[in-house]
């Protein structure tokens, strides 16, 4: 008995360490190859690891001494391979013992030119494009004339390819030759050249480019000027704001290659009225804080478009020190349409401040404000996330400002808003989504969390809202959550979400739940996943099976 045990243990040890030994030893390739079985007749992976491990070791730089041995063994193994699949595997490993082939010498210049000439006569656009590249290969920088001639070609792909082929050779002389073609070229070809000049940052041609600002190629020219940058381009673009190509000029300025702020701030003082909306937008986008007063003045513009642009820009040009001024503006605005963007500006002023202190300051303005404008301050109050603000808004919710207050309570990051959201959910269950977000954030105790989600579920009507609540339940490892999610598996509208959540919760609770319960839950989840046929779900089924197999029954 002892002898049998000894033999058994030795064999077991030999079996266990066989692969390990083989992986470390390049002498073992032939041995391991001999163990490979035809597909489906044995588990080959241990030997495959060993062989590829030996190959990786032998091909590591510095291990050249090992290569001959491994290569020879692979060759012998290939000879002896019992079937083509094993041979193919061994050949794939032998491949790594080779040396990369040096690329063959390319065609001669004569051959390239012959090919280029032939392809140039083709009716296929792409073959003609190939020809211009071949000419480029041969002539390099000397191919300029051909590229310039291509600008008269009707095929856009050919023109653009010609320019592309000359990118690395192009210089100021070439750029000048391109723009000299403008009088003879149509809109389409000029568009290609302007694009090229912009990509190449051809600043020597900025005058010619600006010369196209007023024609059919205005957009192309402005985009090119923006890529090039410089004072001339900047002045020209600002000068075209408010004109026929206002939109294109704005787009060019917002990504202008350089700092536009000083010019925008100056222009805002002096530019014609038509240019003001775009200038205001730029001022706001580019945080032109020096323009704050100019922007405030324009809030009173007779032109509604300008006034709205000023309101929208206010946030971008304000700094925290402007808070009081902005609050006064919000209170005194005559046009209600401007209230929302000015409110955003006020929120911006307080964004880095202490919530409670900000709420105190805002409320000091609100308390003296006419009743008709108090609601304008609700978003700013909500942004402070303070208890003070929440209490004020809850009072407003219960009085004659319920809609505006509810909107603010839906935005505030404070759990005091929760009861209002629950109440509102009785009319519109979408409020439960925000309710659940607050619960997730502020309720720390899992048991309490589970209770809150259960309350939310009771009020949920739509599948979308139920699904969101279920997603949140996935992070609450409680038995009551498990039970609730199991029950939801029978609701086809939310079964998939419930299955995902149940899988997560059960995995989390594996240490607390009995094996039978875990298996029962997983079986139910598998049933839902199998219904989808989705590859990710099939993997999830594999994952659960693996998980179960690792648990003690």
């Amino acid at each position, binding site marked *: 008995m002892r002898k049998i045990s000894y033999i058994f243990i030795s064999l077991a040890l030999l079996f266990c360490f066989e692969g390990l030994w083989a*992986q470390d030893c390049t002498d073992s390739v032939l041995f391991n190859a001999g163990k490979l079985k035809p*597909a*489906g007749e044995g588990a*080959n992976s241990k030997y*495959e*690891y060993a062989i*590829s*491990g030996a190959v*990786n070791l032998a*091909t*590591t730089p510095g291990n050249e001494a090992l290569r001959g041995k491994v290569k020879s063994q692979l060759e012998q193994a290939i000879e002896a391979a019992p079937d*083509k*699949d094993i041979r*193919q*595997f061994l050949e*794939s490993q032998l*491949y*790594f013992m*080779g*040396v*990369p082939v040096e690329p063959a010498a390319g065609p001669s210049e004569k051959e390239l030119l012959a090919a280029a000439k032939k392809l140039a006569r083709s009716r296929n*656009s*792409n073959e*003609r*494009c*190939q020809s211009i*590249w071949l000419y480029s290969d041969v002539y390099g920088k000397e191919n300029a004339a051909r590229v310039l001639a291509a600008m008269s070609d009707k095929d*856009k*792909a*050919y*023109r*653009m*390819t010609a320019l592309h082929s000359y990118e690395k050779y192009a210089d100021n002389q070439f750029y000048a030759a391109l723009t000299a073609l403008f009088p003879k070229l149509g*809109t*389409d070809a000029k*568009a*290609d050249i302007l*694009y090229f000049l912009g990509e190449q940052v051809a600043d020597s041609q900025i005058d010619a480019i600006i010369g196209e600002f007023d024609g*059919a190629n205005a*957009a*192309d020219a402005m*985009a090119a000027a*923006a*890529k090039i940058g410089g004072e001339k381009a900047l002045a020209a673009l600002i000068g075209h704001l408010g004109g026929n190509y206002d939109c294109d000029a704005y*787009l*060019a300025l*917002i*990504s*202008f*290659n350089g*700092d536009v*702020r000083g010019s925008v701030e100056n222009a805002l003082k002096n530019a014609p009225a038509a240019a003001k909306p775009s200038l205001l937008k730029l001022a706001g986008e*580019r*945080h032109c804080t020096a323009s704050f007063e100019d922007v405030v003045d324009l809030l009173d513009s007779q032109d509604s478009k300008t006034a709205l642009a000023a309101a929208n820009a206010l946030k*971008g040009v304000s700094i925290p020190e402007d808070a009081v001024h902005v609050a006064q503006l919000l209170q005194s605005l005559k046009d209600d349409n401007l209230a929302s963007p000015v409110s955003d500006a006020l929120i911006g002023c307080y964004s880095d401040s202490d919530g409670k202190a900000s709420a105190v300051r805002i409320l000091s303005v609100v308390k003296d404000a006419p009743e008709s404008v108090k609601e304008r301050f609700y978003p700013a109050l909500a942004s402070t996330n303070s208890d003070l603000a929440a209490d004020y808004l809850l009072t407003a919710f219960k009085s004659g400002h319920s809609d505006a207050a509810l909107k603010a309570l839906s935005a505030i990051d404070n759990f005091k808003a929760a009861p209002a959201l629950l109440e509102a959910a009785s009319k519109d269950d979408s409020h439960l989504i925000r309710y659940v977000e607050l619960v997730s954030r502020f309720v720390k105790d899992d048991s309490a969390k589970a209770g809150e989600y259960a309350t939310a579920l009771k009020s949920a009507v739509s599948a979308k809202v139920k699904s969101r609540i279920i997603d949140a339940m996935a992070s609450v490892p409680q038995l009551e959550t498990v039970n609730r999610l199991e029950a939801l598996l029978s609701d086809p509208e939310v079964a998939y979400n419930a299955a995902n959540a149940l899988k997560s919760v059960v995995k989390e609770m594996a240490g607390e739940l009995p094996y039978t319960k875990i298996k029962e839950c997983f079986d139910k989840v598998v049933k839902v996943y199998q219904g989808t046929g989705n*590859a*990710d779900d*099939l*993997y*999830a089924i594999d994952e659960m099976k693996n998980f179960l197999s690792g648990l003690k029954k």
Partner: protein
Amino acid sequence: MDKSRRSFIKKSTAAVAACTILPREVFGRMGGSNNFIAPSDQLTHGIIGVGGIGRSDSHFYSDSSCRLVAMCDVDSNHLKSAFEAAKEQFGQTARTYSDWRELVHDPNVDVVHIATPPHWHGIMACEAARAGKDIWCEKPMTRTIGEGKRVLEAVKRNGRVFRLNTWFRFKDTFYGLGTTVKPLKKLVDSGLLGWPLTVRISGATGFAWKFFWVGKENLDPQPVPECLDYDMWLGPAPYKPYNVHRTHQTFRGYWDYDGGGLADMGQHYIDPVQYILGKDDTLPVKVEIDAPQQHPDAVGTWRSITYTYGDGCKIILEGEGYESEGKVPYIEGPLGKVYKGFECTIPNVMNVINELPDPKIEETDFIRAVGSRHQFSLDESKGFHSSTVVNMGVCALRLGRNLEFDPVKQMFVNDDAANLLIDQPMRGDWANYIK
């Protein structure tokens, strides 16, 4: 469209009849800088691979800007299902093919959408470029570095417009990082974080590496389903007995076709980083791995992969379950750090960023790019570079060692076996399509 040609067509019915039998490419591309595409020049597209991602909105659409006119799949069930869906959803009766070459050479197809597993991408893209088609290609752009080089050359030399199907460099919230890429780009360009920078792509910073895309070892051979042309499914990949796990969605778990979660998600995650760091035209000089030995057929998991550029910038990938603990910066420089949600150690960072110009305008509308022949924002060159970063990691994992790379020669340094992974053998004649 130039007016003279349009009036010529209107005047002469005989001329119209003649024009309709001439290839589209004789007339070149339409569109121009005003972006108008006349109905007579409405673009068309065909999709190769309609079983998985080929049915997503990126590919499976048909509208006035680009009609779906053809589709191809080696699985007849997928093809049938897609054909019916196109009829139902778009009222469009598409031509169906089981051989992708026929779709690529279909004169009625202007744009080829490549939505197959990655082992086909290089061959199809090269052939499509040579056939005069513009290309919309799934990621990773190619399975190997060598195929990527050839696609880059083919697209360039044939004057084609190419887009890779990832987009985070120009739109959408960048996964769990909780911000778009634009402010990150502006912040890095500002120099406020200093240089060099380290970027960490990890569950800790909002990115999941989908480790469920691992392969299975010891696959048993199974009968090939009647609906599947397995030989064509494999294409250039080595012949291995059919097992359902090798095909359709789960092909991602096998080196012959893809590279697991790294290759599946790598280009989505790494392409924006190349953009943010201003490294669209270069590559790392080193890749270091911390991973168990990989099986030669089935992709496994890994703990970390670190790429280092010549200037010291790094991209660190952390595998699932091996994330750094605590609060981890997404971008870290000598002068500042950026965390999830764009939390930043630079005071008033949003104000600072707002004062800076937006990044250079790029074309992010593919149909407009086809019309204008401008480079699409994520073109073949940028796609090649970010897919090469991914493939460098794949090579290091497969060989089980760190590797050095020459970004100019685009080859591994002093490692023949790694360079043998740049261009890999292809079954049958498929290599002829990518020479």
